[in-house]
């Protein structure tokens, strides 16, 4: 999974005002971020690949596709994007909309260096963390995919909190056979304790939720 390794400290800026864009770029570079700038949403989308994580700084009033529209689009395709939104003028309803879409922060121009860097840092942190989470989830999912149907059934029963005997009677097999399946299942999932198994199950659940409710992606889920 080398291709999904998070790119370290790259910020993508969507801002059509050359002057302001330069100041953003300079500020971010001063704290060792790499920066890519785009004048319009369509410029950005030409470069965009959903498989990669993206740390974005987006101006709301872009010519053509607006910042809000872009955020909606990115959210809908479940890309690993963390975005900080810049707005030229305070508009509460847009701010609420943006925050619902899972923006890391909503900054009004002119914003201070501190606020900007804090927001970008958080976004960066988020995108890195989410990348790790995604990696974990993919690992767990892959392991679960190796289970036989019996082992999977035993896993489901264990997750549901049933005892060995109860599982045996439910599956119509002997308790001894249940133990063998459980032992194999634990081995395949690379867990050694029930606690570790519980974490796997959590990750599995989280992945299922993410896939089921795309809009819910964001820090709020934690």
């Amino acid at each position, binding site marked *: 999974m080398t291709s999904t390794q998070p790119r370290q400290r790259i910020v993508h800026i969507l801002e059509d005002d050359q*002057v302001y864009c330069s100041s953003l770029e300079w500020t971010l570079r*001063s704290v060792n971020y790499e920066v890519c700038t785009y004048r319009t949403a369509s410029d950005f989308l030409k470069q965009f690949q959903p498989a990669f994580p993206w740390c974005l700084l987006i101006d709301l*009033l872009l*010519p053509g596709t*607006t910042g809000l529209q872009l955020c909606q689009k990115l959210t809908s395709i479940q890309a690993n994007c963390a975005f900080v939104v810049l707005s*030229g003028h305070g508009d509460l309803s847009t701010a609420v909309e943006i925050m619902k879409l899972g923006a890391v922060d909503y900054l009004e*121009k002119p914003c201070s*260096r501190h606020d900007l860097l804090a927001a970008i840092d958080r976004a960066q942190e988020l995108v890195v963390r989410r990348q790790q989470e995604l990696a974990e989830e993919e690992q767990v999912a892959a392991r679960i995919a190796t289970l036989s149907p019996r082992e999977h059934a035993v896993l489901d029963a264990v997750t549901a909190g049933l005892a060995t005997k109860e599982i045996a009677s439910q599956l119509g097999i002997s308790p001894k056979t249940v133990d063998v399946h459980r032992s194999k299942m634990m081995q395949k999932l690379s867990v050694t304790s029930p606690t570790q198994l519980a974490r796997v199950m959590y990750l599995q659940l989280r992945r299922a939720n993410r896939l089921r409710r795309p809009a819910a992606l964001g820090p709020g889920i934690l």
Partner: protein
Amino acid sequence: MDQVLINAVIASMSCGVAMVRVDDGTILYANRRFAELFGYEASELRGRTITSVNAGHPDDKQRISAQIVATLRREGVWRGDLLNERKDGTQVWTHASIVRVNHDKFGEVAIGVQEDISSVRQAEAELRIKESAIAASINGIALADLEGRLTYVNAAFLRLWRQAGNQEVLGRHLTEFWVDRGSAKAIFDTTRTSGGWFGELTALRPDATHFEVQLSATLIRDARNQPEYLMVSCVDVSARVRAEAERVASESKFRAIFESEPCWVTVLHRQGTVLEINPGGRAMIEAPLGYQVCGESVLRFVAPEYHERFLAGIREALGGRRNRQEFELISMRNRRLWVEQFVVAFPHEADRDGPQQVLAVVRDITERKRMERQLSETVERLAIAQRLAQLGNWSWHLASDEITWSDEVFRIFGYEPQSLKPRYKLEFLQAVHPEDRHRVTTAVTAALASGEAYAIEHRILRADGIERIVRERGQVTFDERKQPIRMDGTVQDITEAVLAERQMQEMQDQLAHASRVATMGEMAAGIAHELNQPLGALKLYADGCLAAAAQEPFERTLLSTQLAEISQLTAHCGEIIRRLRQYSAKRVSKRSTCDARELVKTVASFMDHALRMAGIECHLHLPDEPVWLNVDSVQLQQVLINLLRNAIDVQLDSQSERRIDVKVRSLETAQVEFSVCDSGPGIPAAVVERLFEPFFTTKPTGLGMGLKVCRTIVQSHGGQIDYHATAGTGTTFVVTLPAGQGTRP
């Protein structure tokens, strides 16, 4: 022969016969006739000598006597004429034939037979006188035989035909001396048959010249009444004929003029009685056909108020002073005509006490009078028009420097009309406001040099110290050597117009300002947005510098770069603020040279925010080269903002692509065209008509002044605003303005 018979014959002979003794001249015998010849009784002669009887004229007595004596002694017959003195002292011419014979009884005797030839002699004398008279006559006289051959011409004849001598003409035919030989021949034939002809004929000289002759031709008969000669007498009447011809010609010319002249030509008696009138005159007084005008008093046709002057005019003419007068004529149909009359004395041969008649030529001048009246009315109207328009005309004579001013020019300059003789260098130039004087003289000098017309507005200080504004126009006139001789022009007091225009401009400025202020609200958002970008950047740079400054080691280069950036951005912010202030300020219209492209860019930046908010892409199509205009840039920005604003508003509800195209281009007609094209729904028909109507709006919050103000501004710049709208394909507003000068001031 019987002696007695002889004696009887001798005694009764009609001749005087005498027998004289040769020795002593004693009359031996004389018959009765002889005695009668000399006034004696026959008996008295016996014994007397012949010389005492037949003595001749006292002057000749001796000669005659000697003659007779010599004759008596001579042998043979002697014949001769003798002048004798009769007994009573009268004279008698006799023709004598004397013969000597030897008489038986008396010896040598002379027998003389004498005949009275006094009557013949007298006739001869008379003939001689007549011949001299003919020869000396100033009439040319010629005799010709019955064939017409000339046998005699007198000196006058030769002179008339310019001939040197007889030999050149004698023997030539009579008909050769005339231009028309045929007529001449007829004349002479007539003369031959009827005995005479009198008339005129054109004579021809050998040198081919002509002259007019009065000719009298007579047939001369001999004693037997047989035709013998043709006599022609000629008088040169060329001069008279010429004079006559001229008289006739001039008379007929006069007649022709008299008859055909449309003027009234009339001969008047001194009291005004019409003696003659021509058809033109009849027409003028509208005399009915057949109406007898002659004999009437001409005063009948003269308006009564002119009678006295009319008669005075006639008297003056009779006194030798031809004169002219104008009066009103009343025709027989009671029509009034303005006429002018020339009167001159018309002498007549019969006038013993000076001329009694005048010749009057009367001409209809009604039309001229009407023209004169019209002209004077026109002049008057021009004066009134000049006064009303406060416009005067002038003419400046360059050589003398004098200017002719119309009355109104005097008033404009604060003088009584025609109260002085203005000169360019003095009265005119001194009246020009000192600050404008240089401008005026420059314009005039340029006009004099180029020959082109000039127009200039300048201030003047009137004689009473009041300042006025005038518009002056002028043009030079050149003589045939291309030298300027005169400058003509007009001057108009435009003070009120200028003040009104200024007031109007102020009102327009106010309106434009009000309209700008009305849009300021929505402009504010756009300006805030525009200002926000550099401010945002400033904040980040400043913060960055602060952060850098707090670090050790201190990064000097980084800091100075960013501070320079900060400085530049601050200036940029200031510029935005300045533009905003300029746009919103209450101001006086001021034109300057600017680049149309810059105008459009500025406006686009003003409207950037609104365009973004509306999701409209605005495309600017600007030429590579500057497009110069001489305009009030703020007002023109206002126009473009209004047009952009409208273009945005019509697309707010549009579901299709939202787009505005702003185009600038230079036209070949020295104009600049701005077009703002939207992709909205076009303009509904109901709105089109009221588009430029004030207070008409389709926007809930609109004032309805936008396009009205736009049009006012554009028109005040000498341009026009128009639109092309088609339902469904959007609307294009086009502003056309005169192009400005090509350099930035």
